[in-house]
């Protein structure tokens, strides 16, 4: 009897293993197209850019010289790279608070049941997201120009004595680009938050109502804690997107005036594709891109370690 039970359990285990193996196989089969596409369009370019970064190469000619780490050293020595590096982070820090908090506030308002014309407002806020960024950039040049409608309005209502050159003045250009970027991308963050809000069970709010909780307490004790996981993802997406911002800056200011809005993407583009005399420097541009990526990874690791230590300390 025991033997029979043992044999049965063995058969069960082996069939379980088979099923597990089959499931895993099918997972890989379904993943395969994505993996192949990733290898072709993401993986290979990353590997290739590591290789290019070690070359003195224009990208136009067949001849290239292996220079080892020289490009990385030159990038690290260039003050204009560090200016672009700094600007990338200023841009990120300028946009993310709006994308996180303003979008959340708007989402909470628009999520309120029974709000009239909620869909209309959502559409208006989402409209810039589906507009091509480069077109937005070109149009914004005219709107934010020194004789554009923004200046015109601010002067007319008495907010300004004289117009400001929002994009041509080095003091204001980064602020303006950040503001337009926030307007352009607010809608997509709003949708993320709305999706998060819709996933919160209504019963929790009903229970809180029974307990006599105010709207304020419901927000901070139910909504916020339950939104933290999706908030982390929104934060991550925004960090990535803002650090690789290119098209809006390229069309609005081209990195100027005098590098005031030059971010790492425009810095890389300048070296990779343009040169007034001589050839472009694709090898150097690749090194700048990788240097930036590696630096971000290092910062992220340090931040993770510090956060863990702080958490650990609190636990103690």
């Amino acid at each position, binding site marked *: 009897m025991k033997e029979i039970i043992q044999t049965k359990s063995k058969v069960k285990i082996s069939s379980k293993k088979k099923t597990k193996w089959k499931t895993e196989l099918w997972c890989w089969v379904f993943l395969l197209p994505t993996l192949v596409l990733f290898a072709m369009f993401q993986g290979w370019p990353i590997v290739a850019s590591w290789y290019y970064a070690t070359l003195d190469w*224009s990208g136009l000619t067949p001849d290239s010289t292996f220079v080892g780490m020289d490009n990385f050293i030159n990038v690290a020595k260039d003050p204009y790279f560090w200016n672009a590096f700094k600007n990338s982070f200023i841009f990120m820090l300028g946009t993310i608070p709006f994308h996180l908090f303003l979008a959340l506030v708007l989402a909470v308002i628009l999520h309120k049941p029974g709000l009239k014309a909620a869909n209309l407002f959502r559409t208006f806020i989402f409209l810039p997201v589906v507009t091509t960024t480069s077109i937005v950039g070109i149009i914004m040049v005219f709107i934010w*120009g020194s004789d554009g409608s923004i200046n015109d309005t601010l002067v007319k209502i008495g907010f300004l004595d004289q117009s400001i050159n929002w994009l041509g003045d*080095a003091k204001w250009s980064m602020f303006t680009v950040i503001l337009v970027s926030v307007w352009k991308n607010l809608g997509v963050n709003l949708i993320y938050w709305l999706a998060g809000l819709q996933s919160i069970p209504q019963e929790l709010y009903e229970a809180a109502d029974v307990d006599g909780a105010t709207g304020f307490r419901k927000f901070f004790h139910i909504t916020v804690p339950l939104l933290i996981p999706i908030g982390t993802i929104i934060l991550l997406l925004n960090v990535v997107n803002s650090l690789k911002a290119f098209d809006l800056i390229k069309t609005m200011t081209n990195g100027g*005036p*005098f*590098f005031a809005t030059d971010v790492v993407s425009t810095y890389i583009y300048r070296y990779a594709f343009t040169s*007034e*005399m*001589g050839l472009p420097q694709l090898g150097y541009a690749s090194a700048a891109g990788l240097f930036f990526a590696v630096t971000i990874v290092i910062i992220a690791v340090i931040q993770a370690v510090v956060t863990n230590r702080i958490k650990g300390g609190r636990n103690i």
Partner: protein
Amino acid sequence: MKKKFKGIGIFLMALLILQVFAACSNSTSSEDDEKTSDSKDTEERITLRVMDWADSEKVYREQFIEDFEKRHPNIKIEYTLLTSDQFQSTITTAIKSGDAPDLFPIPPGMKLGTAVAGDWYQPLDEYLDDEFKNRFMDGVFVEGLTMQDGKTYTIPAKLDLPNTLVFYNKQLFRDAGLDPENPPKTHTEFAEAAKKITEASDGNAYGIIEGSKTIVRWKNPIVDWSALGGSGLNPHSPLSLVSNEADYTSEPVLEVMNLFQGMMEDGSYHPKTLNISAPEARALFGQGQAGFIIQGEWCIGVWQNENPELDFGVMAPPVPDSGQEGFLPRPNFQPWLGMAKTSEHPEAAALYLKEYYSKDYQSVLVKAGDRFTMLKDVNETAAEIPQFKQYYDIAMENSRLAPSVEIRNPEASVVFGNYKDPQPGLGDILQGVMAGALEDPTDQLEMLSENVNTSLEQALEAAKAEGAEVSIDDFKFSNWKPNQDYTAEDYEAVR
């Protein structure tokens, strides 16, 4: 109700699936049709692929291609117009994958020697006879620029003239009490005229406009206008022809910078200047929003078409108040269109070149005010627009042919292939001054001079390591005189 919707859903799904299959069958049948017609024509019809970035010529080129295909029904032209940035990345990939267009220009910044070394082009001599070459002015087919080792590889696009002459709005001149027939001649007169126009226009127009986002539109006036003051700067070399060094802190350079800075500070520049690119500035000038713009001859055709009511004149750049010490540096012909080494239709490509560089088509371009051609006598006979003719006369009178390092020593192309253009460049620095980001550009200009000297030294070393026989002396022209064209005899004398 739910069932009803389910039914409609299934019906729609079936319809979609049917449509997909129908579309597939349609596309198959149309492909079959194409194949049949292709197989009929395969023997006679060939496709010639041409790629460049000549956007100002687009309308005329499309007509040229249409006419060409009518004249040669066995040749289909597949023309791709890109921006110069797009072109650089596209052509590299195309060449690497063995799929280069039959005819394509050399990318900006690249010298012929580099392209030939990369097996990009094939010699044209076999397909283009002497009659063809005789159509062109002297200096078009020159060793080092368009020829290498005695073989012709490329043909320039146009006759290059300085592109920093000044266009002015005659109506705004009159409104400001200025004489349109007597435009300003010195820096001070120029600045005063711009200021008067701004004041008289009461916010409807400004003294001058530029496209600040197009950095080269800051660099070119500094190079050219400072040459009038004796800086020796020129488009062919990073070194000054006067000091034989990278010298961007000389008095003439600073004078031009001060002129522009002063005009910005007194409000003469159109407020949009800092936010726009060169074509946008050109359009605003065309609308009568500025008294002056510093530009090239290609604008004339555009204004003629888009702003026929614009009453404008052309004038020479103003000279320093202390007097003229030099001339505008006139560039030599630049290599442009070549035939891919991998072209399978060299005869058809040569035919295209012969007709493209025919008097008929080049006359169309000159007549339209698009460019000055390199064909003999065509500029004189075909130019109709008065300002276009005037531009030619003023440019020739006020410029002198600059010496070219590659004509002197064709191996110098290896130096340029290794030259790393330092940033920020001259144009960036002036943009910084105009935007108020740099109060005093002297430090930046000194740094630029140092960086250019270092970059050139490194490029020379790299070129020597690659086996090129070059030296810094190739960049020094001891017999150059600022008031004379640099001729073939001058090159011989220093070789």
